[in-house]
């Protein structure tokens, strides 16, 4: 369930304490005790998260002979260059599909003219929200197998002969699992933001004869772009970090770099290359985070 929690930013308008006593000195005894209150949490994160990140950086840039350098990265790109690109493509395609589906779901919930259909969709789309990745992977492992319900449905509808089909348990299965699992989370954020919009602009456009699609793309989505980006960046980083789904759905080659990291450590105790792959994943996540920060800066400037 990593990442499928609401966006880790505080709601606006919190922290009344800060404005309550602006004249008091910054380092009074009150603020020192507040500091003590957060200390255990901060110390835990520093010891069990920040410190391991630092050791992973050091390990990635240290060669087997103990010298600083890029040996591990040379080996990483030679061995796993293909998997890095594969990982990027899978996560990017999944994010794009999630974006389209989440916008479509949110859009129908706001614009749909049939209360029954809107209620049905609202009830339907959330089901996978808190399903753990490992359970989603197990569902798809049976659903998308050669003899799974997906192939059998196509066969029963007379569209294909199941005997001629293979399973979808490769990169396609990974994408399906990611989209199935993460779309409800992004759609929930997006639908919430859309529901909070001022409806007068939407009604005006509708009265002028704009189609639902046009209202969604040109009026609604631009207004909720901030929340949309947060949701997509969180989904992107989450998918980048998942180990269980690629392990269970596409164990073979090519596979995602999380699987390569586990393999490098479990089979060769090769922490250098595993951590170099880790640094690559940090960089990919940082690029996604950068998209989010740039978005916020643009909003702050506007």
């Amino acid at each position, binding site marked *: 369930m990593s990442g499928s929690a609401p966006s880790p930013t505080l709601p606006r308008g*919190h922290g009344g304490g800060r404005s309550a006593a602006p004249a008091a000195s910054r380092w009074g005894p009150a603020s020192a005790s507040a500091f003590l209150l957060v200390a255990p949490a901060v110390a*835990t994160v520093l010891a069990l998260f920040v410190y391991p990140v630092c050791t*992973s950086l050091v390990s990635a840039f240290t060669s087997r002979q103990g010298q600083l350098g890029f040996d591990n990265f040379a080996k990483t790109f030679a061995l796993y260059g293909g998997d890095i690109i594969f990982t990027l493509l899978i996560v990017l395609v999944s994010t794009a599909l999630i974006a389209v589906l989440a916008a479509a779901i949110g859009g129908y919930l706001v614009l749909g003219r049939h209360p029954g259909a809107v209620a049905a969709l609202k009830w339907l789309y959330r089901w*996978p929200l808190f399903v753990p990745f490992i359970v989603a992977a197990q569902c798809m492992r*049976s659903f998308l197998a050669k003899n799974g319900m997906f192939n059998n449905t196509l066969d029963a509808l007379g569209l294909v002969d199941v005997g001629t089909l293979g399973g979808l348990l490769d990169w396609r299965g990974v994408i399906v699992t990611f989209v199935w699992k993460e779309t409800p989370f992004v759609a929930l954020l997006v639908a919430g933001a859309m529901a909070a919009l001022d409806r007068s602009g939407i009604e005006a456009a509708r009265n002028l004869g704009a189609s639902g699609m046009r209202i969604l793309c040109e009026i609604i989505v631009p207004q909720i772009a901030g*929340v949309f980006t947060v949701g997509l960046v969180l989904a992107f980083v989450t998918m980048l970090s998942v180990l269980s789904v690629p392990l269970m759905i596409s164990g073979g080659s090519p596979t995602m770099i999380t699987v390569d990291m586990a393999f490098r450590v479990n089979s060769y105790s090769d922490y250098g290359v595993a951590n170099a792959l880790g640094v690559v994943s940090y960089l990919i996540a940082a690029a996604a985070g950068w998209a989010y920060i740039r978005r916020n800066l643009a909003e702050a400037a506007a």
Partner: protein
Amino acid sequence: MIARWFGRLTRGAMLGFFAYLIFAPIANLALWAVAIQWYFPHKLPLTYGFRYWYDVFKPTSDAVASLGTSLVIAVITVAVCLLMAVPAGYALGKRRLPWRGPILLILLLPQAFPSVAVYLNVARLFYIVGLNGTIAGVVLVHAVHGLVIAVWIAAAAFAAVDPELELAARNMGASAARTVFTVTLPLAAPGLIAASIFVFLESLDEFTGTYFVGVPDVTTLPLMMFNASLNGNYQIAAITALILLVPSILFMLLIERFLSTETLAKIG
């Protein structure tokens, strides 16, 4: 008239297709849970029954043992998380805090980083200090992950407590500590309960951290399910997956009580 029927039919077909995409993977899993014999090219199981349920739930089974391990770990994780998140959330939501920005940033980091590389270094560290393969080690890894969400929800819950009520208590002579324990904490309790449920579920479902830190001695339910699945034991895997599915679905159905979509709109 025809156009209306056509519209109704398309809507119905679209919703039906959507429902299929959502539920068919779960239905396929449920089918495996009650299948005794099922092999290609048969579209449905050949024989049904609950024999594998007996195997999973008999007192001596691995599944019952790992369910117990999972529950123990989840309960301790919630306790550890709350012990740290309640004071931190109180300070962030109610008090003036120097370096508020950097502190928030540090607390949010575990959610913003790809975690696999971090976990394998935590495992290396734990190996040196003897925490690898122990319940305590797994609890710590789960707690760090849960802390983000726990602090965030706790801070929001404390910030939502009306300061006037606390002032009223102080004016009537209650000490600062008494105000916290008799006014602030009870009013923030629903949020703190929501945070506990979140952390509990996250711990129950956690796979990656346990995979690196727990082996070989700590087998939680997700790890057991994973092993069953990779060994081709689809029935056992499906039944354990269903056990993990129940709390997630219940929570999804309950979440509206805690967080409405309108509240979620204020995030971000």
